[in-house]
């Protein structure tokens, strides 16, 4: 099977969908002519292969990029636009939150906005808090948006293809560290359903719910725990909205314990939503209080040692699991 980083998998998904459907085009800052000549990046060589009409470099204007998607989508195209770094989402947020997400509702369900906003995210580059800021809980809080945050290249390919074919606005968040971690990706055509979590590792003692880059941390910790006789079940959400509640609840019913792991800061983080769900639906199955392993409530530091401290790691996860097992 081909080994691809997540950026290459995204690239393949874009290529396949652009080839399949002429209505699909991409736009964003540097999606065509990039400052990096790196085949691991998601939009590498698309300009060369699809031309300037379908791979549009835009002025530096996040609101306009997202607004372009809203207008193009309502008039029948299927735009896939890129917000270069997650903190810049705030500049585009009015278009995404107030318009892409609400105009269907305000038209009594009539007008449709089939668009994808790809956002690059993740700490680990020493680029600081105005380049790295995981805002998935913000987006998930806004009705009318689907929120996808893949953890593996294979899922990224199938989920992005599903997002492009979805008739709703989808916010698709890619952790850039995963661009450089090759994993097997099926070469053939496939779709991964939005709204379905996946149990990435079976276990009986504790459920670890996670997504995006933290899946790697969860699997490493699970391997470490297994050596001590603790079997962790790792649930990869893949999609935050709509949330696959059944997979979370049935796993917790089986294990009786829950730890939620994410890179984003803790207060108001999406882990709160997962814990609330489990408390509401599976309280009697819980043998111990749940735990959350998250980034601390500070902006992402620039300094590499501080940034390493910021990003949750397997030691923290193992310690949290041991507190409740």
């Amino acid at each position, binding site marked *: 099977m081909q080994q691809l980083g997540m950026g290459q998998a995204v690239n393949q998904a874009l290529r396949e969908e652009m080839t399949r459907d002429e209505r699909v085009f991409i736009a964003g800052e540097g999606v065509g002519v990039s400052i990096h000549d790196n085949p691991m990046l998601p939009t590498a060589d698309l300009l060369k292969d699809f031309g300037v009409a379908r791979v*549009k470099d835009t002025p530096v204007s996040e609101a306009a990029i*997202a607004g372009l998607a809203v*207008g193009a989508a*309502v008039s029948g195209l299927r735009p896939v636009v890129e917000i270069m770094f997650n903190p810049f989402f705030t500049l585009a947020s*009015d278009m995404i939150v107030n*318009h892409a997400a609400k105009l269907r509702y*305000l038209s009594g*369900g009539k007008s449709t906005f089939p668009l994808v906003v790809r956002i690059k995210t993740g700490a680990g580059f020493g680029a600081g808090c105005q380049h790295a800021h995981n805002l998935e809980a913000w987006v998930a809080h806004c009705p009318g948006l689907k929120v996808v945050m893949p953890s593996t290249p294979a899922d990224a390919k199938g989920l992005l293809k599903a997002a492009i074919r979805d008739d709703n606005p989808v916010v698709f968040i890619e952790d850039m560290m995963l661009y450089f971690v090759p994993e097997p990706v099926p070469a053939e055509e496939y779709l991964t359903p939005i709204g379905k979590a996946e149990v990435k590792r079976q276990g009986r003692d504790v459920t670890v719910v996670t997504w995006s880059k933290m899946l790697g941390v969860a699997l490493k910790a699970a391997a470490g725990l297994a050596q001590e006789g603790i079997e962790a079940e790792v649930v990869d959400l893949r999609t935050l909205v*709509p949330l696959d509640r059944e997979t979370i609840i049935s796993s917790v019913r089986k294990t009786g314990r829950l730890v939620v792991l994410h890179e984003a800061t803790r207060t108001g983080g999406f882990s709160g939503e997962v814990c609330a769900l489990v408390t509401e639906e599976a309280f009697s199955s819980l043998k111990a209080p749940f735990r959350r392993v998250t980034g601390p409530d500070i902006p992402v530091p620039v300094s590499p040692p501080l940034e390493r401290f910021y990003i949750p790691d397997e030691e923290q996860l193992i310690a949290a699991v041991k507190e409740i097992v």
Partner: protein
Amino acid sequence: MPRQEIELPYRIDYLSILDEQGKVDQDLEPDVDKDFLLKLHRGMLLGRRFDERLLQLQRQGRMGTFAPITGQEAAQIGAVAALEDSDWLVPSFREMAAEIWRGKTMENVILLYAGYNEGGAIPDGLNNLPIAIPVGTQTLHAAGIAYAMKYRQEKHVAMVFFGDGATSEGDFHEALNFAGVFQVPVVFVCQNNHWAISIPRSKQTRSKTLAQKALAYGVPGIQVDGNDVLAVYSAAREAVERARSGDGPSMIECVTYRMSVHTTADDPKRYRREEDVEGWVAKDPITRFEKYLKSRKIFTDKKIEAIEAEIKQEIKEAVERSEKKMEELGDPLLMFDHVFAELPPYLREQHEELRKELRQDST
């Protein structure tokens, strides 16, 4: 020469064809037939009369807040009259007359302001967008629609409306810049009605005109007498033709006046003087157009009375239809259906919760 003036590609013109007395500048008078002129008049008058009726309905508690258009009929009808059906209208929230010209039904206007999102549904085959409340945001959607037109190599045009206040929003500038860079077929129509809620035009910007803001983006701009339907139409036709022929965007500043409240939720006496408004009564767009039509013997007082009666009846029937529709749409559970293309499981649960609650209330 170390310092000299840089010549810019465009200058700002001011266009007025029909003066306050209804006297026409024959050199500039657009070449359109009698039926078209009558249609312009009817569109403006319907907008005025429907606006008055909406205000009554709101005051009677039969519908909620809305933004009246009185005084701005020429700016709206003159502009959309230059569009083909296949073009796109992107309104803000004060373009009721333009929306109706473009096929939105009066009952849908009432339904929307009575709180039924179904009133915002765009009928099949109509290229309008629902209204946009956050100021200026729709300018970006119009740039996106125009981008799609160019992408598909279709000869359609997007026309977007916004007010003087919107020119202070970043979105307006980003939209002009995008449209300018991409040379897409969009017409930016600014209804400068002198008031952004309670902020007067003089406190909105130091710019002498709003039209000149387009120049910064390499986009031609023109200022017109917004109460002169012939001037607005002529400028719009020129801009639409420019867009359709592939020569990119334009901006038209229509200088008009908001004769009524910002919305039915405010009291303009708190921030403007009656005398200011009175000065604009003499500039009324409908009165001057009627004078012009009479001077051209296109119609008589009797004919106006007949049109008034016809419009009154149409409005009456629309109000009746809207109230009947409200009864049909009485099911509050419908609101869950409009968020996504399909009902996700968690919304189905919340839908069910409300259904149970309603059943308990009714027992």
